[in-house]
């Protein structure tokens, strides 16, 4: 049983403790609370150097020390506190850094409200378990045999066929019905590769529809998108060794993942509103009457500083956009501002929860919008690497990792 150490404040008084435990149980893990001697709490706070007023935060610090000192054994760490609590937010972030600097355990942070449900925590918990349980599989750097990866995302479904570490077929389509979308892309990728379904030695599924598709296609690997996408990203970017940060701005949620040798050690996922997602850029393209594929180049020709736009909400964001157009701004400037609005929100919401490590690899369908990559460059001070086939990270990760299940390898 994987033990996830919980360092938290407020969970039991926000009606989320049972949700946290339900999510852990669902992925075969259990939450544990590192035992600390009462006498050691003050000395732990002194050692840490931040003395919070709230005693529960002092206890969180002492518990983190117990993990670092190995006086309490656990496999992964979940650090959580109430959304909007300033003191806890400071402690949460500093403890995350402390755990990363002093242990090799994967860590995830989360700020909750009373509306947080186990479903929202499931992928995070699943990723923690995958990192612990599948360490050897995740260390795999080469794909072997003939395998397929299926990534059933909220916006698009992708398929990739790989043979002996080379992509030989790929296809994507907007996600409609999960089954038919997957069937379509898989058949197209197979045709492109010139192989048949029967020849495939293993299939790996990831994304929102992973369980459903995993069952239908008898997948050997069914794995959440945090670890699978990371693997695909470092393989595609040829950055399998060392550290990196992966930024995946998705259709519905965003991921920021730090990796060491291709294995995540910290990640955040989510986004307050569609205003910070690929969906907002789709809406922008529609309003500007251009294809989403043209939006990036259009944004690159514009000047984002001319248009004020930074909304946490896609509805208000579009309102800003309409107002700016009415005020006579060019579509190029508006497109650039929309990309910057998304980039700034990724920076404010996601990248504050992780330690950004170079190089930065930007992936997912939105990484094809060059204006968004430019906006990320302006925000981060360094142009992210966009690997070839960057929209196929999940499918590539699925094909690569599932090859670990082929008998004889």
């Amino acid at each position, binding site marked *: 049983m994987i033990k996830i150490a919980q360092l938290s*404040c*407020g*969970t*039991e*008084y*926000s*009606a*989320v*403790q*049972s949700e946290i*435990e339900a999510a852990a149980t669902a992925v075969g893990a259990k939450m544990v609370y590192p035992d600390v001697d*009462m006498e050691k709490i003050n000395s732990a706070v002194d050692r840490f150097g931040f003395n*919070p*007023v*709230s*005693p*529960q*935060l002092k*206890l969180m610090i002492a518990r983190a020390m117990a993990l670092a000192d190995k006086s309490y054994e656990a496999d992964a760490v979940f650090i959580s*506190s*109430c*959304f*909007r*609590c300033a*003191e*806890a937010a400071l402690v949460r972030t500093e403890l995350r850094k402390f755990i990363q600097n002093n242990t090799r355990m994967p860590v995830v942070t989360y700020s*909750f*409200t*009373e*509306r947080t449900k186990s479903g929202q925590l499931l992928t995070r918990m699943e990723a923690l378990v995958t990192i612990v349980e599948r360490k050897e599989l995740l260390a795999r750097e080469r794909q072997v045999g003939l395998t397929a990866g299926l990534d059933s995302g909220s916006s698009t479904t992708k398929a990739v066929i790989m043979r002996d570490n080379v992509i030989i077929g790929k296809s994507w389509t907007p996600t409609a019905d999960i089954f038919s979308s997957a069937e379509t892309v898989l058949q197209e990728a197979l045709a492109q590769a010139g192989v048949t379904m029967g020849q495939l030695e293993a299939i790996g599924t990831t994304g929102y529809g992973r369980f459903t598709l995993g069952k239908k296609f008898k997948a050997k690997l069914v794995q959440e998108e945090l670890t699978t996408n990371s693997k695909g990203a470092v393989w595609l970017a040829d950055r399998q060794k060392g550290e990196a940060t992966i930024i995946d701005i998705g259709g519905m949620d965003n991921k920021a993942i730090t990796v060491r040798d291709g294995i995540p050690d910290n990640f955040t996922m989510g986004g307050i509103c569609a205003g910070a997602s690929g969906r907002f850029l789709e809406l922008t393209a529609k309003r500007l009457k251009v294809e989403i594929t043209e939006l990036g180049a259009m944004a690159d020709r514009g000047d984002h500083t001319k248009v004020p736009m930074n909304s946490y909400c896609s509805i208000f964001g579009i309102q800003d956009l309409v107002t700016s157009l009415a005020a006579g701004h060019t579509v190029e400037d508006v497109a650039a501002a929309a990309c910057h609005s998304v980039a700034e929100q990724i920076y404010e919401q996601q990248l504050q929860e992780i330690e950004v490590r170079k190089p930065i690899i930007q992936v997912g369908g939105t990484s094809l919008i060059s204006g968004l990559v430019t906006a990320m460059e302006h925000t981060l001070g360094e142009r992210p690497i966009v690997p070839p086939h960057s929209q196929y990270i999940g499918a590539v990760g699925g094909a690569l990792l599932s090859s670990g299940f082929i008998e004889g390898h």
Partner: protein
Amino acid sequence: MKVLIVPPNSLILFDLVERFGHEPLSVMAVLQEKIESKEIESPPINVTVDDVKKGLKYAAIEVPSGIRGRLAIYGPLVDIAEAAIIMEDAPFMFGCVGCARTNEMMKLLIRKRKIPLLELDYPANEDEAKAMVAQIKTFLEGLVK
């Protein structure tokens, strides 16, 4: 009389109030009812989402959920309290008393009720402890319905 104790889960205060003939109002008894509630299929740990919403009576929506959830437990206790003892600077406030902001808010709610109130500091040594016990005894003996 019903005497609310702060910290509301203190063993020392609970024991002394009971020892000197009054009914201590503590969070433990409230939580027991919630935990054992038969109507809830999967017993929540400490509070439910509805409790957190009830906390809106004491703090607005921009206040973190953990504060509202805690106040949803403390608030009704403050409402029925006939007297209170507040012990400041207790060095052991974890769990339900782990949030400093909530604790301040609870003290304000008590002070606003204008009920008999004893405010003292957590003792730092034996002499202070002796004075604390004596003060609590005198306060509790002076409480008459």
